[in-house]
């Protein structure tokens, strides 16, 4: 026992460690979020939180409910695979409550030019024109119907 008499201070030091460790364990129980470790080393609840973010683009399926007539025209033309919101912007609010949001007509001078301005960088088969030469300043919709812009298939105005 005499060993312990002269090593008492060491036990006190060790005791501090043990105490700190116990406090740590208790605190940990309260601090670590309950869903942590549910699927892996992360807070499982985060998945649902992220999935609950608001949707801004309604998605092309939801336009058909009210705008089937436009969609029938589009389906038969060159823009068949261009989704509505690709040109009209995010409209989930409008789809939720059509009266609350009136979509703004896109400005064709900017919109059409973005895709169809000729550039050596664009794929060769893609329809592209030099805007100044092609339309001499006239807005695109003077000759092209935006929902079915091809001239041959009756899309011309």
């Amino acid at each position, binding site marked *: 026992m005499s060993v312990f008499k002269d090593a008492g201070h060491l036990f006190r030091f060790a005791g501090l460690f043990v105490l700190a460790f116990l406090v740590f364990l208790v605190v940990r129980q309260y601090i670590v979020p309950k869903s942590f470790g549910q699927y892996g080393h*992360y807070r499982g609840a985060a998945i649902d939180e992220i999935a609950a*973010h608001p949707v801004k683009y309604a998605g092309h399926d*939801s336009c058909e409910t009210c705008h089937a007539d436009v969609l029938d025209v589009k389906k038969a033309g060159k823009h068949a695979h261009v*989704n509505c919101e*690709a040109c009209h912007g995010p409209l989930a609010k409008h789809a939720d409550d059509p009266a609350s949001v009136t979509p703004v007509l896109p400005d064709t001078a900017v919109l059409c030019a973005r895709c169809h301005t000729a550039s050596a960088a664009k794929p060769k088969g893609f329809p592209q024109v030099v805007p100044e030469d092609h339309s001499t300043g006239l807005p695109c919709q003077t000759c092209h119907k935006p929902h079915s812009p091809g001239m041959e298939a009756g899309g011309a105005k």
Partner: protein
Amino acid sequence: MNVTRRQMLILLPAAAVAWESVLAGTPEEAPNYKLTEHWWSMLIDIPKCIGCGNCVRACQAENDVPVGFFRTWVERYHVSDEEMTNPQVISPDGGKEGFPVAQEDGEKYFFVPKLCNHCADSPCTQVCPVGATFISPDGVVLIDPKYCLGCAYCVQACPYGCRYIHPEKKVADKCTLCYHRITKGLTTACCEACPTGARQLADLKNPKDPIHEFLKTHSVQVLKPQMATGAKVFYNELDGSVR
């Protein structure tokens, strides 16, 4: 079938609510979405990309991406015949407003849209010190903004440069593959806005997904395959000069 009055009293209002939902156009979170039934990925068809920047704008609108940072962006490559190892690359404001017109000079040009590759063996989730970033059971690498310290170790570890620290929230941020959309049966904002179908969301666990056929019949690559990150964004006809 014999429907009792009691059943009608319950069914009618329920049907009304459901009908509201259908009319509204925004589907409620698919209540039968099972995490283990999906393994999300994306297919990017290089020959179809026209560099219009629709995807960059749509992503920014859908996800409130801070100005100057990008969850997705488009790069334009200009490769001369002799110098495949030294392409000229530009990405003006991430390609958000498209690209300047390229003059015909007989050399090779193409666009490469980039985003988080949602790697199966991601180096970014490996280095997170606290478990704030992770790969979900359905294959999407996500960040928990309530747990992230903002140490930026994951940003350093990503070989593709797809992460950044959100300037206001001060946590790591990146493409979530529009998790809030794909779990509801919608496609990602970038795929929705792409006019040429250059970007397609794919579910590797869905046997009916066209990606399976596509992968079998086309030359497909991932970015930086030597890093062995298990990247899940597949590029059709990716040129060797792409960095």
